[in-house]
């Protein structure tokens, strides 16, 4: 490849990635060269500016033709744009949390790394959304994963943080291995790593043995990737890692990393398995054949997440299980493969982004104040800080999926989809039943905040600017999209061409 071929590529399609990459590199250098005593927080603000820049450039790319460069390994379609926006918005809010993060044991020495590792992780996730090739997908996945491993353990002198990072690395490696093994089957059957070529190649599979292998590959890839979603059976790392990691990192893992996980799952499953013929049903893609397995995993994930969350006394662990449960709800949308699946998942992740990050902002403030993360620490929050309590209440109500909030519309979309075409009664029933279960633990926190007397410590909270920004955006998003859900849908249809170009 000479310089001329390189120049022929339409590099502008990668502008958002370049912005993040450039700023990440810049921050690394700045961290090296600026004097030790200077506050590294400025790096965080630069990071936020970079993310804003990237959002603007993504928006400017929206609505155009599908661009595919670098031998179809990088593609910019509506799907990529839609999910990149989510990733960027999520990371931006997480950075706001990070600049306000003040743990008791201090983290002045490594605060710089904190910021640019967020950016590299984000870069990995963004590459995943735009990948047209198994290799770039995997590279994006690993870039995200490795940055996250370090982030989880960034509080070097904190035992739990170390434990959390260790567990994360081990589980992550296992999941990568399983995913890669599955991918190798796909490569072996088609001789290509390009997603669209694979899809083309699989259209004509005649041998039933091949179909069978593909089914196995499907299971391996899906189970491997369920690690990123924190879905069953690969969910067990989540509570331990969430508990040990610094709060902004937990927020990052539960939102941005999860979005990235859904991106890669949708990319691979839909393009590779959406077209491959299955055993016995030549006209039916293998994905429909495997629907029951996705449904099974979705159901188990919802049950485990919601039921075990009931027994948690640590708020971060509780939110870990809650995030498992939410992954289960979104998997229901994936199972149904209804016509509004893309939109349902996108909207749910959008709503989830707002409500979960907002909740983590409150958690961060409260846990910093009390030094522990017990749910009991929320007792009497209404007395100590009515604003925080009301905001947290609103976000919990949205997480529980109550009408009038974005969480409700998200669940409604998924639920409508579940009855689209062939109704999935069992799955829908599990979803509703587990939602009812989820009321218990969400309202448990509410009871603590509003109905329990505060412990003797009744100091006022001083809420940092970064947290205020997150809370305002989170509440505005949760309420706005709950009352006027059409704003999100209109944006999606007007600017993103309804994701019809996913397969082209």
């Amino acid at each position, binding site marked *: 490849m000479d310089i001329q071929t390189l120049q022929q590529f339409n590099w502008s399609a990668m502008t958002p990635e370049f912005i993040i990459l450039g700023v990440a590199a810049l921050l690394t250098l700045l961290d090296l060269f600026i004097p030790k005593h200077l506050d590294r927080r400025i790096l965080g603000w630069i990071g936020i500016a970079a993310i804003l820049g990237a959002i603007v450039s993504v928006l400017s790319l929206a609505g155009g033709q599908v661009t595919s460069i670098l031998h179809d390994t990088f593609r910019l379609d509506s799907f990529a744009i839609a999910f990149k926006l989510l990733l960027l918005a999520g990371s931006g809010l997480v950075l706001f949390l990070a600049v306000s993060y003040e743990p008791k044991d201090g983290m002045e020495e490594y605060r710089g790394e904190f910021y640019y590792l967020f950016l590299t992780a984000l870069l990995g996730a963004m590459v995943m959304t735009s990948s047209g090739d198994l290799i770039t997908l995997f590279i994006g996945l690993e870039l995200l994963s490795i940055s996250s491993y370090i982030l989880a353990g960034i509080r070097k002198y904190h035992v739990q943080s170390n434990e959390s990072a*260790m567990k994360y690395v*081990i*589980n992550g490696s*296992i999941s990568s291995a*399983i995913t890669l093994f599955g991918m190798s089957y796909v490569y072996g059957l088609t001789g290509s790593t390009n997603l669209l070529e694979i899809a083309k190649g699989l259209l004509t599979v005649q041998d039933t043995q091949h*179909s*069978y292998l593909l*089914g*196995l590959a499907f*299971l*391996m890839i899906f*189970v491997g990737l369920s*690690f990123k979603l924190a879905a069953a*059976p*690969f969910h*067990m*790392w989540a*509570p331990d890692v969430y508990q040990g990691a610094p709060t902004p990192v937990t927020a990052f893992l539960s939102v941005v990393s999860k979005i990235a996980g859904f991106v890669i799952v949708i990319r691979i499953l839909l393009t590779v398995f959406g077209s491959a013929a299955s*055993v*016995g049903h030549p006209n039916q893609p293998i994905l429909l*054949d*495997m629907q029951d*397995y996705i449904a099974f*995993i979705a159901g188990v994930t919802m*049950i*485990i997440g919601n*039921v*075990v*969350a*009931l*027994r*948690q006394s640590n708020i971060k662990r509780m939110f870990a299980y809650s995030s498992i449960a939410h992954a289960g709800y979104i998997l229901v949308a994936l199972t149904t493969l209804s*016509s*509004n699946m893309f*939109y*349902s998942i996108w909207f749910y992740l959008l709503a989830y982004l707002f409500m979960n990050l907002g909740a983590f902002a409150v958690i961060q403030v409260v846990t910093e104040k009390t030094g522990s993360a017990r749910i009991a620490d929320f007792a009497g929050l209404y007395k100590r800080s009515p604003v925080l309590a009301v905001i947290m209440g609103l976000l919990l109500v949205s997480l529980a999926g*109550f*009408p*009038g909030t974005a969480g409700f*519309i998200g669940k*409604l*979309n998924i*639920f*409508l989809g*579940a*009855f*689209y075409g062939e*109704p999935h009664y069992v799955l*829908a*029933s599990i979803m*509703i039943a587990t939602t*009812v*279960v989820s*009321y218990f633990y969400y*309202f448990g926190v509410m*009871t603590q905040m509003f*109905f329990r007397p505060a412990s003797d410590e009744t100091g006022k909270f001083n809420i940092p600017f970064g947290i205020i920004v997150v809370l305002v955006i989170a509440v505005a998003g949760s309420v706005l999209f709950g009352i006027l*859900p*059409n704003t999100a*849908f209109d944006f999606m249809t007007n600017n993103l061409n309804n994701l019809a170009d996913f397969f082209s």
Partner: protein
Amino acid sequence: MGLSTKTGRCQALLGFDKIRVVPGTARRGIVIMMENAWLIPLFPLLSFLILLLFGKRLKEASAYVGILFTLASLVYSILVLFERFSEPTYGTNFEWLTIGDIHLTAGFEVNQLNALMLVIVSLVSFLVHTYSKGYMNGDERFPVFYAYLGLFTFAMLGLVISPNLLQTYIFWELVGVGSFLLIGFYFYKEEAKAAAKKAFIMTRIGDVGLFIGMILLFWQTKSFEYSEIFKAVDAGAVSGTMITLTAILIFIGAVGKSGQFPLHTWLPDAMEGPTPVSALIHAATMVAAGVYLVAALFPLFQASKTALLTIAVIGAFTAIFAASIGLVQTDIKRVLAYSTVSQLGYMMLALGSAGYVAGVFHLMTHAFFKALLFLAAGSVIHAVHTQNIEEMGGLWKKLKFTGPLFLIGTLSISGVPLFSGFFSKDEILAAAWEGGHPILFFLALIAAFMTAFYMFRLFFMVFTGKPRTEMKNVHESPANMTYPMMLLGVLAIVAGYVNTPWFGSFLGDWLVDGNPRLGHAHVEGPIWIMIAATVVSLLGIFMAYLMYYKRSLARNWLSGTGDTLHTILTNKYYVDEFYQLTVIAFTKGLSYFLRFIDVFLVEGLVKGVVGIVQGLGRTGSRMQSGQVQTYGAVAFIGLALLAVIYALTGGYLR
């Protein structure tokens, strides 16, 4: 009622199909009031917001904010009701949410049922607001209470003007939240907290049914709109099984909200809330929402015989079941709570027997007399500071207003002729008989007897005889508590006259006007039904009189008077003994038996489910050992399991 023949004809022409009157298009008359009916729920919402923001500063003046805004709602509702008498149904919609080819709308509608409900809800809410000023006086969270009342009223009013199921569901949930806050208002009491939680969860179980039914119905008819659903049902676009299934699922929602068997257990517990809340929630609003939902979707239910029969059976069973439990309760509010459950069962029985008018009529009269009874009970509690009727007695002379007002409510609920409850109950009995349910009819008749009995037992124990405990400082409640009761007292008497077999069935004619699907305006039952209803209610009163009034008198007389009287009285006593041994023993036994079912079967079932969920939770968290090997192993085992299932079912080995 101002129904001119001309407008009557107009209405007859207008079916449900024509209600899509969009503002700006041609329409009959000026409907300025109905056009802006969406304002009605907003007044209490405004009150809620103001009190939320400035409640702390307003202190006791918060009451005036709440009272004024609900008064505004009430006045507006009355104007809308009167406009609705002469104008056709008005409704408007806008597109709210579009997902792909799915279009969801939001809007509001004023049809007969909605207009009537608006008035009932806003009236009772207004009276409760006024009453609470006296009752809650001195409570440190006074403004919060009024804020919650506003939120609840907003939700309920929003519910009754919703033109589609989704919007109904949203407000339905909001009503649940409001009731949760209100029932748990005394959250420092463990019972209140538990009751609030129970109410919330139990009604949620019903809501699951409603939600699934609603979504199924949506995919069948492609719409959440009531009118569209009815059109699709009429056109035969939905299969019979599907109608039955969705109707029953939706009815489950109503079962939860309206405290029907087996989801009724939250309702008596909910008495832990402040008494005005009980009046609001258990007379006119939340519990009536279930009946309202069935009434609003009546054409759907009518399309399925099975669904109607289910409703009728559940209703009749609940009516007698709750009434029999009411016989042995000693807490004044709990007696009223069980009577509410029982009366709601009556309404369901009416609707299930295709007596749309009877059900709605009883909903209205019940709202008035039950609100009166609760408020009067509150006034009693306010005076004696206990809820145990064993500790009361002889309050008639001390509570000059409350006593007679309570009597009016009691007479009305017992179905004594000329009181409102008599007419509506008669209508229901006639509907049940004519609907071809003789067994259910007799169950309802026995329940009517029991109602008269336990209500008068309550009355006699509270107001007559001698005080059974020492009660100091018993005083009548302040004026802002007695005036609302007086107004309700008047309504508890006269409200029945809008629909009588003697003076014409105005309400019935109006309710079903232009809508043949809702059935007849008035069901003409045989004359003996009315006589039977009167006889059983008087019999119940008489027995209560003998047992709880006469007996206490007897003790006094025995001490000083002669043989003749003594013999007579002894004979009276034999009568009592006889009753005691036979009928009463039987009913008491039945009552305890049903209570047993209540405690062990229903609650046991609930506890079982909870236990399973908690057990799963325990197992799950135990597996979370912190050992990273376990986590990897679980993932591998999960994968292996899936692969094996795949091999066995889908692939290689097949």
